[in-house]
């Protein structure tokens, strides 16, 4: 980060220690490490490479959705349609490749494009009419959900051609097996984290989230930016669709029904403010891992899944409480 291009760097350069303490991801990171420590002590099976690889595999779909969700929440928006859009994309890909005659790669490209199209549409409605993101994406949730069920005729698509599930294949790393999809997800997180923290576009996203009016007066083309953010989010949902297919090996019209809420959970746990302008994609990655670690760890301990729901709920309320209190103090 150079001082000349980063507005935030106008603050005095903090010491490394202070920087670590004040970074917005510190809280979530501590929570994640505590959870890991707890589960490592509680079960023999938790602290193994194979298990960590498993957790990453399990969270990669929601994780990829959550990247898009983070972008939108940073603008003080919200996207309720992400899971449904992903499900539609995955059915388009599966049907085109398995039953249509499209080559797998073309089917994937088409599915991603369809999802990006949904994102574009969300963005246009939010920006041009304009409508509240909550309402637009609530409507789009139902549209995408219905289209998924109509187009799939309620049938799960099986017998997918090999290339569609390629990302679900594993390669050995030491004693564990890593899926290619996990790498894609991690790469996407790093790419978006870099984009947000170190490019003009990224800084504009934060500026927009802090105050659309101020951003506009500063010469940011807020309309184009907003539409762009929703489109990029849609694109990410399309990639999530590919990851989903590769993970389950089928095209499932029932998929993604709670993924919108799960992605919001991850964003919130990662320390991103629902009021916009504050947070990070890396925080979201930690948030996603927190949920994955709890689910996996509690299962390994033999705790019934209803407790996972209970704990996730409490975690979310705590995270938002902390966000609210810190905002009040900042005022």
């Amino acid at each position, binding site marked *: 980060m150079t001082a000349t291009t980063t507005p935030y760097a106008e603050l005095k350069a903090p010491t490394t220690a202070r920087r670590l303490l004040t970074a917005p991801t510190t809280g979530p990171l501590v929570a994640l490490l505590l959870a890991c420590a707890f589960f490592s002590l509680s079960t023999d*099976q938790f602290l193994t490479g194979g298990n960590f690889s498993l957790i990453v*595999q399990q969270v990669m779909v929601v994780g990829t959705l959550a990247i898009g969700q983070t972008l939108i929440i940073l603008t003080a928006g919200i996207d309720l349609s992400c899971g449904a859009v992903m499900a539609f994309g995955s059915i388009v890909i599966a049907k085109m490749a398995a039953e249509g005659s499209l080559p797998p790669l073309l089917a994937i490209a088409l599915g991603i494009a369809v999802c990006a199209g949904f994102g574009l549409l969300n963005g246009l409605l939010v920006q041009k009419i304009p409508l509240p993101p909550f309402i637009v994406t609530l409507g789009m949730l139902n549209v995408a959900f219905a289209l998924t069920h109509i187009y799939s005729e309620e049938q799960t698509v099986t017998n997918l051609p090999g290339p569609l599930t390629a990302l679900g294949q594993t390669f050995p790393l030491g004693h564990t097996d890593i899926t290619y999809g996990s790498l894609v997800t991690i790469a996407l997180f790093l790419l978006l984290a870099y984009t947000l923290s170190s490019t003009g576009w990224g800084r504009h996203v934060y500026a927009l989230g802090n105050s659309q009016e101020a951003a506009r007066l500063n010469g940011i083309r807020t309309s184009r930016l907003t539409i762009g953010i929703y489109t990029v989010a849609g694109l990410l949902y399309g990639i999530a669709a590919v990851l989903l297919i590769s993970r389950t090996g089928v095209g499932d019209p029932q998929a993604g029904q709670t993924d919108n809420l799960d992605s919001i959970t991850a964003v919130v746990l990662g320390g991103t403010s629902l009021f916009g302008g504050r947070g990070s994609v890396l925080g979201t990655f930690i948030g996603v891992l927190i949920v994955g670690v709890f689910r*996996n760890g509690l299962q390994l*301990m033999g705790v*019934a899944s209803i407790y996972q729901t209970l704990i996730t709920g409490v975690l979310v309320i705590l995270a938002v409480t902390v966000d609210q209190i810190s905002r009040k103090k900042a005022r």
Partner: protein
Amino acid sequence: MPRTTRLSSSLLRAAAVTGVAALTLTACGSGSGSGSGSAGSGSGSVKVGLITKTDTNPFFVKMKEGAEKAAKENGAQLVTAAGKFDGDNAGQVTAIENMVASGVKGILITPSDSKAIVPAIAKARAKGVLVIALDTPTEPQSAVDALFATDNLHAGELIGEYAKAAMKGKTAKIATLDLAPGVSVGVQRHNGFLKGFGATDKDVLCAQDTGGDQAKGQTAMENCLQKNPDINLVYTINEPAALGAYTALKAKGREKDVLIVSVDGGCTGTQAVKDGKIAATSQQYPLKMAAEGVKAVVTYAKDGKKASGYTDTGVTLISDKAQAGVTSKDTGFGLQNCWG
């Protein structure tokens, strides 16, 4: 934002985190306490996994009860998981993976999606885990080692035959309150009912999906009555849907002259048969499915013998208005054995 507040917000977070950690400890403590003993320590006992469609459906609660009891009797350790909603395939896949990682010897699963779950089951079986489907078969059925379930077609046939006898002399105007498109349990019961009654889908005046939900059952019945006010025979996928239908019929003053038949046989449902709200129901036995499943896993752990094929866990027609030529038991028997 001034740096001091950023620091304090961070400290706040840390404080919150500590609170959560404490909460986790208590929650986990109570969780494993009420369950079947603490994990990890019982390295000697056989670990059995049970994955249901949801945590909250009474049918699966009963199934869990049966599994817990059988686990205790056989010195096995039971771990359970469930999807977040009926149809949550991804949740069940995750549960299978976590259970395999935790070292279960066998998994009992009620698949939310008969087809979509197959690859995940294949992975578990490849690692030597015995997988038994409970209640709902996979597609293909051979994707699991064994299936312990109600013969849903037969369950439907029984109430179809009952309805045929009870409607004797009247022209049937049929409504069916079904489960959801493409779900095998619902399709089999529906087809069984029609087969037992000697009707076809063309004879059905109104067919609606209810998801097996009472409120949706009521709405569906209201709509059916709006369309065809003279409906006099209602097939329902389960008793919640049947009770919804009853509420709708009662609002129209039609509860006495419309025959409702159902499948399931839960305690609430059987009571509704006793109260005369439902004429007859086919009672099934989830507790038995789970208990047999646990036993099969324990056997596999002991001598490596895998359960295979289909085991019919039985179904009994329950009614207090017995019809000539149709074998049934009364609600006294039904209430004693509800979901037993």
